[in-house]
């Protein structure tokens, strides 16, 4: 047992926090290279090998957690586990669990750009998890680098001591050794007792066609090896361990994962839903009395309808969702039908990025052209008879007579912008029904603005506006802050006199007119001329609040057949037909894909 305890003292588990483009993956690569996990030539070879492996065995290997060995200046050899974290606000919970698997984190900040909102959010997550945060000032070789200013910012904004921050350039390979020395000397070894019943934290998993679900764990107490019967404490599911291993960075089977170890467990698990991130793995025969803290069942924040353009693709779409679900425990879907779009699925996502990723994968990997309806948040409605319902689809919104009141989700939004843009961002947030909370100067040039804002307003065109109004200089983060009563109405869209359920949206009453007008204008722009005139109307209840008309097609006919070149003519008509295939026949009107998302892509100015 002393071996295990000695070994435990030499383990360091850490992750890297960085804003996109601040050099996280380059630094990770350098660390791998420096510790000899991979030579720079192998960095290339490794990628290729993995692709071969994927091809041969049909599996995907994520570089999610890597075990490295490092001989430090004190002459001792250390076992370092570098745990990668997703970097987007949609996946905050996953990030927090990855961090819970670590004792420390490198905070990588670009020496020229300073701290960004996303970084800040993740640093707070790290501090919440009691991680030792080691600042690293990266890209110091840039001419515009201002390491001292950035250090000051780290101290002022986060309250971290940055005096010993390593000046690094991951690209140029500067400061890598210093970083590793700090990891060894400053990050504490894992706590935990090898003699206690097994407790291991699940921080990720992926589905392998041959082995089933591969669970990524960090052992907190006890140990785990092949043959052991394990239980997932939140779901109650039990399995027998087939193999355990570590990522070196290739998946390598080991005898045992013990206290402080990070690795994977294979146990013939068929469904990722059994292996929820944040759950605790314990010994089924000698279970731990309490699970690890912090487990939360994550719920989707945003819902939308996914419909195949071609009705016969419905079953393929179901299969695509089933396959994606194998690897994505947070994806929810259930069948629904729409009068306008036929049969499809209501799908729940962690956020907009998550939604876009899934849509894109279905279209690209499974080659199913989709209609996506405008995303909706979850409204809590209370009816006059006292019943309460969660509404994730505007078509299910109750009629006003039955509605007592409705609540909508609010988020706390933090936006970091250069001084010059404060005015325009305040204007944007107020336009989005935001309530000002706070404004803080990060330094003489940059400001953090905090607002309480309806989530639906963020879903509605907020990112694009933020980007265009600040020329991309703003960074943004949000977290759910609760539900509030709101004065909301359902707005319907009619095409050629027929209501199109898939285009209904829930909007704030004060904005209904304006939004109705904009949607009608946008529809007029997007819907191509048909054989007949198509009125586009927006209405609340029976009251029409906006109207536009798509004029009838007047002329569409080709000129001559030049010198008998029939194929040219044919190609043109094939193209025309192909274009029609990307459209959905809604009643008598052919509506292009983009029109269903049009309610979002709107510039109100």
């Amino acid at each position, binding site marked *: 047992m002393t071996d295990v305890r000695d070994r435990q003292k030499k383990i360091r588990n850490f992750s890297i926090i960085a804003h996109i483009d601040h050099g996280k993956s380059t630094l990770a690569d350098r660390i791998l290279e420096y510790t000899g996990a991979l030579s720079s030539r192998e960095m290339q070879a490794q990628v290729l090998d993995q692709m071969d492996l994927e091809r041969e065995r049909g599996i995907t290997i994520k570089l999610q957690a890597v075990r490295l060995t490092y001989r430090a200046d004190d002459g001792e050899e250390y076992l370092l586990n570098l745990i990668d974290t997703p970097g987007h606000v949609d996946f905050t919970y996953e990030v927090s669990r990855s961090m819970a698997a670590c004792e420390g984190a490198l905070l990588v900040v670009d020496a020229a750009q300073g701290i960004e909102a996303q970084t800040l959010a993740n640093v707070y997550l790290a501090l919440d998890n009691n991680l030792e945060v080691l600042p690293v000032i990266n890209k110091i070789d840039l001419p515009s680098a201002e390491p001292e200013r950035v250090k000051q910012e780290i101290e002022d904004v986060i309250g971290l001591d940055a005096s010993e921050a390593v000046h690094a350039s991951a690209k140029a390979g500067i400061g890598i050794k210093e970083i590793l020395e700090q990891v060894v000397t400053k990050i504490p070894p894992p706590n935990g007792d090898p003699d206690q019943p097994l407790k291991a934290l699940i921080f990720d998993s992926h589905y392998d066609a041959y082995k089933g679900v591969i669970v990524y764990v960090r052992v907190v107490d006890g140990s785990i090896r092949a043959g052991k019967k394990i239980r997932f404490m939140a779901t109650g599911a039990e399995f027998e361990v087939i193999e355990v291993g570590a990522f070196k960075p290739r998946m390598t089977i080991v005898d045992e994962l013990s206290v402080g170890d990070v690795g994977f467990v294979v146990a013939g698990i068929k469904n990722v839903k059994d292996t929820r991130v944040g759950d605790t793995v314990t010994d089924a025969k000698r279970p731990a009395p309490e699970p690890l803290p912090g487990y939360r069942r994550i719920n989707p924040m945003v819902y939308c309808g996914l419909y195949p353009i071609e009705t016969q693709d419905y079953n393929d779409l179901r299969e695509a969702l089933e396959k994606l679900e194998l690897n994505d425990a947070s994806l929810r879907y259930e069948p629904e039908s729409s009068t306008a779009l036929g049969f499809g699925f209501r799908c729940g996502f962690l956020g907009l990025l998550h939604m876009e990723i899934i849509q894109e994968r279905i279209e690209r990997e499974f080659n199913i052209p989709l209609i996506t309806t405008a995303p909706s948040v979850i409204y809590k409605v209370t009816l006059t008879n006292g019943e309460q319902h969660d509404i994730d689809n505007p078509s299910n919104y109750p009629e006003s007579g039955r509605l007592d009141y409705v609540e909508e989700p609010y988020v706390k939004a933090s936006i970091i912008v250069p001084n010059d843009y404060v005015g325009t961002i305040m204007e944007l947030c107020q336009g989005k029904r935001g309530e000002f909370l706070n404004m803080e100067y990060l330094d003489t040039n940059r400001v953090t603005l905090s607002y309480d804002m309806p989530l639906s307003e963020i879903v509605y065109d907020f990112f694009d506006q933020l980007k265009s109004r600040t020329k991309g200089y703003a960074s943004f983060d949000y977290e759910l802050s609760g539900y509030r009563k709101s004065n909301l109405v359902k707005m319907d869209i009619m095409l050629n006199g027929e209501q199109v359920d898939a285009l209904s949206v829930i909007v704030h009453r004060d904005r209904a007119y304006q939004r109705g007008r904009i949607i009608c204008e946008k529809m007029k722009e997007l819907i191509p*001329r048909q*054989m007949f005139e198509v009125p586009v109307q927006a209405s609340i209840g029976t009251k029409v609040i906006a109207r536009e008309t798509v*004029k009838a*097609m*007047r*002329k*569409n*006919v*080709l*000129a*001559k*057949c*030049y*010198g*008998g*070149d*029939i*194929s040219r*003519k*044919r190609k043109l*008509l*094939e193209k*025309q*037909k192909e274009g*029609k295939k990307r459209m959905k026949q809604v009643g008598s009107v052919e509506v292009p894909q983009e029109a269903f998302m049009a309610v979002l892509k709107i510039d109100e100015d």
Partner: protein
Amino acid sequence: MNPLQASPKALYIHIPFCTNKCHYCDFTSYVLKGQPVDQYLDALEEEMKRTVAALPPQRIETVFVGGGTPTVLTPPQMERFLKSVFAHFPIAADAEFTMEANPGTTDIDKLQAMKAGGVNRISFGVQSFDNGLLERIGRIHNVDDVYRSLENARAVGFDNLSIDLMFGLPKQTLAQLADSVERAMALGLPHYSLYSLKVEENTLFHKLYERNELPLPAEEEEYEMFLLLMKKLKENGYRHYEISNFAKPGYESRHNSVYWRNEPYYGLGAGAHGYAKRERHVNLKGIQPYIEANKERLPRLEVYDIPESEAMEDFMMVGLRLLDGVRASRFEEQFPGRKLEDVFGPVIEKQLRDGLLERLERDGDFVYRLTERGVLLGNEVFGAFITAAV
């Protein structure tokens, strides 16, 4: 005999030279200066020899020499070229023999060579009677050239003349078009082709269009223009016999009708298309590659078989361009054992319902043709038949 299996009775020959390239043109044509025209004519003769050896013709009833600009040939070149056509192909005595011509490239000498060589119909690329507009679309001729050319042609003895006019041109107004039509009608020719501009890839216009610098008339205006043309031509006694073509009775282009009836034709020259025995070919497009290839073989760029389904779709796509429409019996002649209504039932029904097609009964035969509205929205109708054969 099934017309699709017979030897072609129509012959198309391409002369790929022009004095310059027009802004809207993406056909196989090369600026004349420095081109080996005589070698090209040699090569063309080689292709004629190999063509008739491979697929002996019975009797050629229509010849169409297009371009490019066939009239850039010098009178001696013209004489030699026409002789070779008659030497290799059995041209019927009453054949229609059309040559495209550019106003400005047709002096008396050349017209005489054409006449002597057997040409009996000329199609002039006039395009417009507005000098500003002609310049804007890259034409080298002006309105005076048009009058002089037509006068010369008549003087030499040509009476079967046609001119092309274009509409939907950049910045073209309805009034300008009305004026051009007025002047065209005053010429009293037996045939007019009226084309709307289509912006093709690989043209100057396409580049401008991509950059949003091509001020084309709106769909509404183009619609008005087409209505105006149809009205004026009708008033002057011309029959609208094909979407873009109008003629006095008996002066319809016999050669183009071959395309529209989906019947076979020989296609010779660089970039030319041919269709015979349910096989289409495209010739090599470059002058040198074309000349080189002819030294040892037929100068094909591509040859492909047309599956029956595609041929049936083509039949509808081109056949419905004729305002007389298609006859079910003719379909069955070309595709023995297939019935038009079985192959395209649902498509036809929908077009009938939408009021774009109409069905007439003639001597126990069904005729399908575009309605007035169908003529304006022809692409919607043609497109519906593409990939629809069952």
